[in-house]
């Protein structure tokens, strides 16, 4: 009971002392405010990035790798063609599927450089030739109608599955199923509309270097139909490129587990290089690795932020020490009076420690609010995902109290060790 009353009294003395010098106390708090705000914002950004990364891995599947057509131009192109390579092809996809038992699925894609037209409406859209494996690997689901099937591919049927925003832009309020859209010179029947899926678009916001399309603007047709109807692949307008090279732009390859990614990459690279007559006209990418890479970048960012936060807290702590020393000197006589009335060294020490800790804790509180503001601003300005965890708030509060205790210690001890009589006579 007595100890509680005593603690309450120390806090009340501390609040009183701070209230007497409002501006000075606020200025003293600034370092702590910035430091804590930086800690909170840093952890919020870090946590947001971590969440985005996790979602991204989830969206793509952690056990996939990409085989992507590399840019081949000029002499290299002529050389590759002379050697007999045609770049990535459907035959490559079939080979990978057949040759490696650990390859569970292969989804080749070919992008078509054509517009999609219906009733003279030409919305922004990307036409992609795929096979059903693509739907499976990217976890696409139909909102209406159906997805592309193996028989669509086998028969090179002129059918299309639309992304939700393309469907809306083309058909407005008409039901799209069963209607025909014009792609290039051919008519394609709409057999399905995809369910909207935010994952891929969101993941791209995370700043990770995997090229993703906006699924909502995609138009999918069987890859066989794409290769047959559109001999010119996307970007073939570039005279440096051969429209017949790299008919398949990219393949998503799913393997039987993340531990197989690295051996699979080596095996696929070797096998494809042999098929391409030793020409490295493709690259094999492991998304997980890229995510790891981005995580490392994130770690460096965190380290820099932690350094800034620590420096700010250090400067804030020194500020507190400075102001507390000034306060102790200013209140020398008060210390003498308190000692004469029965305050022990411990009481005096406690009084100044509590005051320093209160300043620093109040700074911490304002800093937490500042951290909220910063992470919200980062989210709004840069589009980065941020998330403030309870742990970071506890950490910030703990750190700010600790700074008060550590940097308040020396001034408090100085106050406690004053000779009471000298203090009483201090003018």
């Amino acid at each position: 009971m007595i100890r509680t009353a005593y603690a309450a009294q120390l806090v009340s003395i501390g609040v009183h002392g701070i209230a007497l010098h409002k501006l000075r106390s606020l200025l003293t708090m600034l370092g702590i405010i910035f430091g804590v705000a930086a800690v909170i914002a840093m952890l919020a950004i870090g946590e947001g990035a971590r969440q985005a990364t996790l979602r991204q891995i989830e969206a793509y599947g952690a056990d996939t790798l990409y085989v992507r057509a590399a840019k081949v131009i000029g002499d290299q192109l002529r050389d590759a063609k002379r050697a007999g390579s045609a770049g990535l092809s459907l035959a490559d996809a079939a080979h990978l599927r057949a040759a490696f038992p650990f390859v569970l699925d292969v989804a080749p894609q070919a992008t078509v450089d054509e517009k999609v037209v219906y009733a003279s409406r030409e919305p922004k859209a990307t036409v992609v030739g795929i096979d059903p494996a693509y739907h499976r690997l990217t976890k696409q689901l139909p909102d209406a109608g159906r997805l592309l099937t193996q028989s669509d591919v086998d028969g090179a049927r002129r059918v299309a599955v639309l992304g939700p925003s393309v469907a809306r832009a083309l058909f407005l309020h008409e039901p799209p199923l069963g209607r025909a859209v014009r792609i290039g010179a051919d008519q394609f029947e709409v057999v399905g509309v995809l369910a909207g899926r935010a994952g891929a678009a969101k993941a791209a916001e995370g700043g990770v270097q995997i090229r993703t399309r906006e699924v909502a603007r995609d138009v999918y047709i069987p890859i066989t139909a794409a290769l047959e109807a559109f001999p010119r692949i996307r970007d073939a307008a570039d005279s440096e490129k051969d429209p017949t090279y790299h008919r398949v732009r990219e393949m998503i390859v799913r393997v039987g587990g993340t531990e197989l990614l690295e051996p699979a990459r080596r095996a696929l690279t070797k096998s494809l290089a042999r098929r391409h007559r030793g020409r490295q006209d493709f690259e094999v990418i492991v998304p997980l690795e890229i995510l790891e890479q981005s995580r490392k970048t994130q770690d460096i960012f965190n380290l820099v932020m932690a350094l800034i936060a620590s420096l700010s807290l250090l400067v804030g702590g020194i500020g507190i020490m400075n102001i507390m020393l000034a306060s102790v000197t200013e209140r020398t006589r008060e210390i003498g009076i308190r000692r004469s009335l029965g305050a022990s060294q411990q009481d005096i020490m406690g009084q100044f420690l509590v005051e320093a800790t209160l300043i620093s804790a109040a700074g911490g509180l304002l800093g937490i609010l500042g951290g909220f503001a910063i992470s919200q601003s980062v989210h709004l300005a840069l589009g980065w995902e941020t998330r403030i965890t309870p742990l970071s708030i506890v950490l910030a509060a703990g750190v700010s109290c600790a700074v008060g205790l550590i940097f308040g210690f020396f001034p408090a001890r100085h106050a406690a060790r004053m000779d009471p009589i000298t203090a009483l006579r201090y003018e």
Partner: protein
Amino acid sequence: MNRAPAVRAQGLVRSFEQAGGTLRALAGVSLTVEAGEFVSIMGPSGSGKSTLLYCLGCLDRPTAGTIELGGEPVEELDDRSLSALRNRRIGFVFQSFNLLPTSTLADNVGLPMVYAGLSRARRRERAARLLEAVGLGKRLDDYPTQLSGGQAQRVAIARALANGPAVLLADEPTGNLDSHTGREVMRLFGELNRLGLTILMVTHDPQIARHSGRIVRVMDGAILEDVPVPDPIREEGSEESKRLLELLSHFGSGGPSE
């Protein structure tokens, strides 16, 4: 009831290390003050009278010699116990009042009770009664800067009495007051002494010293003479001191009533 002397000092030496060598402020002082005595310590500036007072009040530690308060030796006590002793058994009154300018009168008077562990409500209630007793009962929430010297010294006396001390130590309590106000303070001291409070007062004013029952003259850190006052001045008791008397009979002495 303990009949040990209120204060007993033997062979007190207090020396300070200075640039020019060692300064002996006290050079072997022995002094016994019985409970209920009112003693004046007189002497010129630098004679060591204040140092003696602070040593007896456990605010300063003697270089050598022993001190007993109410029969209890204090030289072995650590800072904490010594502070507790100062808090419960001793009340200090200073020449310059030494009130905290940024605290209210109630908080000033309640300050010793903080270190005795009293709750805020108890402190305020008791401070109100003490201030009432010294005639400032309506000014609990005023600040020291709003007071005259006499009023400030009365608040300081109320504060010194906060925990019901056995000994009041006063260092030139009338030094900053005019003679009329000084006499008022002496009247208060006289009443307190009559209640049984032991008072040791440092003064250089012979007129003030005549209010006490005994005068100890100090010179160069040693006692020059120690004589009783033949006919001490007894100011007539005022309304205030009667209230004080009534109040303190509730408190008892030698520690707070809790």
